């Protein structure tokens, strides 16, 4: 088991639904929502929040800088 646990916050109004963070995540945490935001984009969200280790890969690839990452050591 991972000794760190993370969480990401996606600004769903800023997200343009490009899907790059979904591919960049090594633990399949993120997915694109079936719902859309006010601009019509399928924004990203944490589908499997338990898997997140807070590696910041999703935030690093996000072209719109709409992801904030938090991490705790257990």
């Amino acid at each position, binding site marked *: 088991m991972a000794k760190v646990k993370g969480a990401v916050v996606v600004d769903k109004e800023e997200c*343009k639904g490009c*899907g790059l963070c979904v591919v960049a995540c090594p633990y399949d945490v993120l997915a694109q929502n079936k719902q859309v935001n006010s601009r019509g984009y399928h924004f990203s969200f944490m589908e499997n*929040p338990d898997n997140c280790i*807070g590696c910041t890969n999703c935030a690093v690839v*996000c*072209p719109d*800088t709409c992801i904030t990452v938090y991490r*705790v050591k257990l």
Partner: protein
Amino acid sequence: MDVKDIIKPENLVYEKTKVLTKTTMHYCPGCSHGVAHRLIAEVIDNLDIQDKAIAVAPVGCSVFAYNYIDIDWQEAAHGRAPAVATGIARTNPDKVVMCYQGDGDLASIGTAEIMHACNRGEDIVVIFINNGIYGMTGGQMAPTTLVGQVTSTTPCGRDTALNGYPLKITELIAQLPGTSYVTRQAVHTPAAIRKTRKAITKAYENAMAKKGTAFVEIVSTCNMGWKMPPVEANAWMEENMFPFYPLGDMKNSEKGAVEECYKQN
């Protein structure tokens, strides 16, 4: 542990840098410009040079870059950003000047300006976004378009008999004695982005140390121009762009080091 317990200010590891403004970027979903802008903003934040950084905006999609990065900007005519940057850098020697250009801007209409600015060894940072296409105007062929690549002006693929050959401008610039650091990077994976951040940091440090022109090419995608989804465009870039535009440092020295330029090429 619940997600709500993790999301607390003391556990923060990554957030949007303050050098980026709150304005939503106008770029298409998945555009590499967004990542490049953020990397420049993060480097400026890390080096703590927000007060002395001046940038020159190009003509192209990134013409509105002054809305997104919170530093001083000057807009230049198409391709003339290095000439404007020369003037700013020479009259303000205590500032760090950067020009941010695309491939239609730098490698086509502005070839003369960039060549001579690099040859004079102006102490500026040049960020060159190469996506092999004129993105803003609708995906026309650029000098950097690959042989056989389909664009809106080459619907059957780029034909060398008619359109000539793709231009490797970074290799040309690496031969000039005025440059200090010439590199080619990409922003398609987290690892590549971290490497690019290091390259931009080094470019800024060289410009501040007056070592000569620092030139960073970023091979990037234009998924709307290429008519692909963002993830597919990244895969296409890895498969087709990287064999012709290999990543890595081409030169790392100081201006005036002529022997090294001729030795490397």
